[in-house]
């Protein structure tokens, strides 16, 4: 699904990581770990194409646009318009991906993520949501997009224990269904029961 070969990145004379290589296959999860500032989010950004520069190659399987089957969770943001409601935000992102949902499935998914009721789903602007509610909405979006590859940067940010467990189950189902994921997290709760490999960035690469 994804082949990363000898990627390096740094700022001026400061190398963040060097010659990192790995392959990510269907059903596989790789955790990128390391201390603060070791380049975990930067590596995810490089793979996603949000950051350019550095060396090495990043190859996605297939000839189609990788963005069609890749979803991304940012560490500190959810890509939500604060003046719009949860359903308006979700409908926009899903429509852009050409996702057609069955009637009621959006409401059901939001309900599963603790965002039940017409008022919360369709009337209340996202600006009024708590940090955790916004994250829940972003994770509901991730689920509904149905992408094969999940790039997750601190996905548990702001979530309570119940939502953490729910996302762990969701990630488990994603991998069982043949999806793959690259995860940056400092929170061990997410991966404690999920089989995964770890890439450690220690300032000098692997």
């Amino acid at each position, binding site marked *: 699904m994804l082949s990363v070969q000898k990627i390096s990145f740094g700022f001026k004379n400061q190398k963040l990581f060097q010659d990192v290589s790995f392959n990510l296959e269907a059903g596989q999860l790789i955790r990128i770990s390391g201390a603060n500032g070791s380049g975990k989010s930067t590596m995810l950004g490089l793979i996603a194409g949000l950051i350019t520069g550095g060396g090495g190659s990043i190859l996605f399987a297939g000839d189609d646009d990788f963005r069609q089957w890749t979803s991304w969770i940012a560490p500190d943001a959810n890509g939500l318009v604060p003046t719009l409601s949860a359903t308006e935000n979700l409908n*926009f992102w899903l429509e852009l991906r*050409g996702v057609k949902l069955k009637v009621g499935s959006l409401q059901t998914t939001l309900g599963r993520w603790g965002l039940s009721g017409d008022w919360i789903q369709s009337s209340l602007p996202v600006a009024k949501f708590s940090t955790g509610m916004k994250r829940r909405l972003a994770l509901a979006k991730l689920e509904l997009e*149905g992408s094969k590859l999940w790039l997750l940067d601190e996905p548990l940010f702001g979530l309570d224990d119940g939502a953490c467990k729910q996302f762990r189950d969701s990630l488990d189902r994603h991998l069982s*269904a*043949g999806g793959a994921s690259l995860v940056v997290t400092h929170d061990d709760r997410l991966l404690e029961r999920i089989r995964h490999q770890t890439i450690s960035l220690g300032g000098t690469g692997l």
Partner: protein
Amino acid sequence: MTLKNTARQTWIENVRTLFAHSLRVDISSKERLITPIFFALIILMLFSFAIPEPDVAMRSRMMVAESQLAIFFALQIAFSRTFESERIDRTFDHLRLSPISSSAFITSKILHVLFIGGGTMLCTGILSVILQGQNMGQMADPVVLGAAFLTLLGLTGLGVLLASITLNAEGHQILFPLLYFPLSVPVLLCSTEGLVHWLDTYKWDSTMRGWSVMLIAFDIIYLTLTILLGTEAVD
């Protein structure tokens, strides 16, 4: 859970979705819609106070000045907000990771600004008929409407181009007007001179043709550059 390779939207669908989203964001914050209308109203009021009883010839010129000013300032507001919703909550990064065409993104922005500018023009026209007794026939003259549309098109192209180029530039709020004001002068000049000449003579002569051709040429240049460079900047 089932994983699916989702069907990709066509270019037209991309534009439609992005344009509809921009309008939805505008409607969700009423202030965005009301501000340009208030601008138009203030401009009309200022002209009314400054020139209380204009003669017929002066009225025509006032109409040109009022509409140009209203479009210019309404577009200024629209440009400053062109990428505002994308700056929030890393929406722009999320868009970059969505399977959309960057030219569709830029096109939707052009349409959005045209919509705001067109709405402001319409409001200015209606209000000037109501408040100042402007001649409705003169307002609805095809040449006047055509010139106003071409002005709007040129300024929109230029504004979206500069907004996209300065999207991630430090101090873009200073950089934008510094670039926009001098580059918008040719469009405003062609449009104003052409309109004044038309309202004075109502003759489609060589002077009128000259200003029109220049206005169309600037429109084509700015819109082409917007599609080419704006797309590059977004990428």
